């Protein structure tokens, strides 16, 4: 059952590359949250019940509800409807995603290690790589936050890959990090949007005292 969610997660990455609307990014992030919930629900039976419940609540509440809702609010505040054309054509982005996925599957197949659960490593690696690529190709700050969250989801999967017992503190730290990061960046985007009427990074680089 875990494989089902992992494969679906890989599909969301393809849709991230395909879509050009900001609203769709938020939706896809929410879907990724639900998929992570599924992964955790079907794979982490062995850990303590308190930790298990905590991670479940984290994925379903924070990743798939609070963060997307907040991002949606930021999106509406800044009147973001359509992503301005990414600097790389979508056609190439899709090819990049596919190559990343194939590479990460091949790498995981060759790892052959007992310490690492390679089934999580596949999409974790692809997700981190794609998150970085996503940040590079988009020009506005909002999409950068989305890219950051994709990387974060990848790191979450990576933490599942390296150990079946996830240390509570690490998880708590990641959660706090993400929530604060998104909140701060959201407020930041709102302020920039209010002051400059645009959140393009090209214009930000022209700022002077």
């Amino acid at each position, binding site marked *: 059952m875990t494989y*089902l969610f992992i*494969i679906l997660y890989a599909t969301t990455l*393809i849709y991230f590359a395909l879509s050009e609307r900001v609203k769709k990014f938020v939706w896809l992030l929410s879907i990724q949250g639900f998929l992570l919930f599924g992964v955790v629900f079907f794979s982490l039976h062995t850990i303590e019940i308190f930790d298990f419940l905590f991670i479940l609540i984290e994925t379903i509440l924070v990743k798939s509800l609070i963060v997307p809702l907040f991002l949606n609010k930021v999106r509406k505040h800044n009147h973001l409807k359509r992503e301005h054309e990414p600097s790389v054509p979508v056609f190439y982005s899709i090819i990049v995603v596919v190559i990343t*996925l194939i590479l990460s599957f091949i790498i995981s197949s060759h790892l*052959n290690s007992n310490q690492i*659960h390679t089934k999580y490593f596949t999409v974790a690696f692809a997700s981190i790589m794609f998150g970085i690529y996503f940040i590079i190709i988009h020009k506005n700050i909002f999409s950068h936050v989305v890219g950051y969250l994709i990387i974060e989801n990848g790191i979450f999967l990576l933490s599942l890959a390296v150990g079946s017992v996830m240390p509570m503190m690490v998880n708590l730290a990641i959660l706090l990090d993400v929530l604060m990061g998104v909140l701060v960046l959201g407020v930041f985007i709102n302020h920039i949007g209010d002051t400059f009427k645009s959140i393009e990074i090209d214009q930000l680089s022209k700022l002077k005292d």
Partner: protein
Amino acid sequence: MISFLLILISAIFFVGVITKVKAKIAARKMPSVLQPVYDVIRLFKKGAIYSPITSVIFKIAPIIYFSSILLATFFIPIGSQKAILSFEGDFVFFAYLLGVGKFMMIIAAMDTGSGFEGMGANREALYSMLIEPAFFILAGSVALFSNNISFNDLFLHLNLDTNLSYIIGIAAIYVLVYIAMVENSRMPVDDPKTHLELTMVHEVMVLDNSGFDLALIHIATWLKFAIYGSLISNFIIHSVWTWYWQIIAFFVIQLIFSIIVGVLEAFRARNKMEKNPQWIIMLSAISIVVFLTALIITQKIILN
């Protein structure tokens, strides 16, 4: 033989059901399910008109197009009903049969010397070229999964019974529905109802065909829909079911497929022309995910 007849019967009603669904959703008066058949009969009674600058290619193209698709129909099995023709690796032959027909239509469109038709042919060629990897990767991964390389054995030994193989089934159906839409120049890439030549793909290509030739082209479209519908039904129908259940399931699936096409056409807007290639390549990307899944199932990629 039975599978061939079943496909022919379902082809007759396919486009009629689509039109009916579209009319129902738009709250128009519904035409009869057999309306496309009446149209084709009317076209058969008419003679064809040929432009003086066209050569013999233009005259034979619709016939080759039609016959290549009819021949492709011979290769499709339904459940345990065998196809008429079958050999190792016939899905490659199947894809190229459709390709031959399309190629003839494209050079026939070029033959007329009309700018519009050249443009339509250009687009059609691009989209067919982009959709081809999706079909081959999908067929390849299903072949890998069931360990057979002819349509007959491939679907006969296709057992979608574990969690992971459901992904293959669902994704394959999803991709095949959209391949059918692209191959038949339907909604997300092309709007069959459009009245402006500049935004057409398939319609503008067959602008000069009339009478008998146009009728053949229409029938070829029905057949293509029915072929893809039967490919989809093969993913759902189990070969262990009794024959009458298989036939009932086949018609139900064809009906659902045509309703889905109708609903998609009624509610979706056409993609922007320059967004089409990226949308089509997305289908190939999904087929690659299917391929990776097949690799995991067959333990070519070992994960723990």
